[in-house]
């Protein structure tokens, strides 16, 4: 995988998660990939090596597990592939 993203069931969850992850690791805000959802949404992107830290921080937060989901992303453009996974 090239990078990981977390999607959220609500915009509030996405914004809250950024506060949770502030100082934990470097993240980027990005639109949810069209391959994952046709809807408009906020996703958080991070490097694969930060997966453990991100998963731990979100698990320790007040966000419920069903409020967010992890995806592995590989490639770009026509070769882009996404796969949901549980860390």
């Amino acid at each position, binding site marked *: 995988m090239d990078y990981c993203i977390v999607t959220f069931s609500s*915009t509030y969850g*996405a*914004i809250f998660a*950024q506060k949770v992850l502030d100082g934990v690791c*470097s993240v*980027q*805000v*990005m*639109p949810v990939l069209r391959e994952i959802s046709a809807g408009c949404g*906020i996703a958080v992107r991070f490097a694969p090596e930060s997966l453990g830290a991100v998963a731990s921080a979100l698990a320790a937060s007040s966000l419920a597990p069903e409020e967010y989901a992890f995806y592995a992303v590989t490639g*770009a453009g026509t070769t882009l592939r996404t796969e949901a996974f549980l860390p």
Partner: protein
Amino acid sequence: MSHLIDAKGKACPIPVVLAKGAITDGADAFTIEVDNTTAVENLTRLAASQGYGLAVRESGGIFALDFARTGAVVKPQASAPAETCTGCGYAVLVGRDTLGAGDRALGTNLMRMFFYSLANSCDLPACVLFLNDGVKLPTLDDQMVEHLNALSGKGVEILVCGTCLNFYGLSEQLRVGTVSNMFDILSRMQGSGKVITL
């Protein structure tokens, strides 16, 4: 044999589109006639970027630009913004540090998502212009700086209002782009096919 393209009366970006068409067709030499200086500037940049020598003749408000292939490509100099207006494509004008009116946290996210998408887009702007609150983005926002560096690396000109940087005490904190002024910013807007204002 050199051929003549009549682009008189054509607004930007049509003259450049017509010239690009001739270049794509493999023309070693051609002449294009235009009737405004913006088109001359745009075509001058095009010639340099595509490896063509250029001679400009003016008569009665009509400019005839003689393109001749040399193979020497001249890249625009980011340090000389006054001379690097493309006039074609589009400009993005950023006058605030959030996208849209409303909740600030949401607006911050939307701005970062916009530039994430823009940096990964195939259709890049000629320039991005930062004014007022917008100058906080190329100075204080790590993610925005990353996207702007990516855009700059792809040839997008980043201009940042020096008056605004000074007002906010950010003059020493500019991390990407060129400190600019209203003359340059206005010229970029005037020379662009369209301006997207955020």
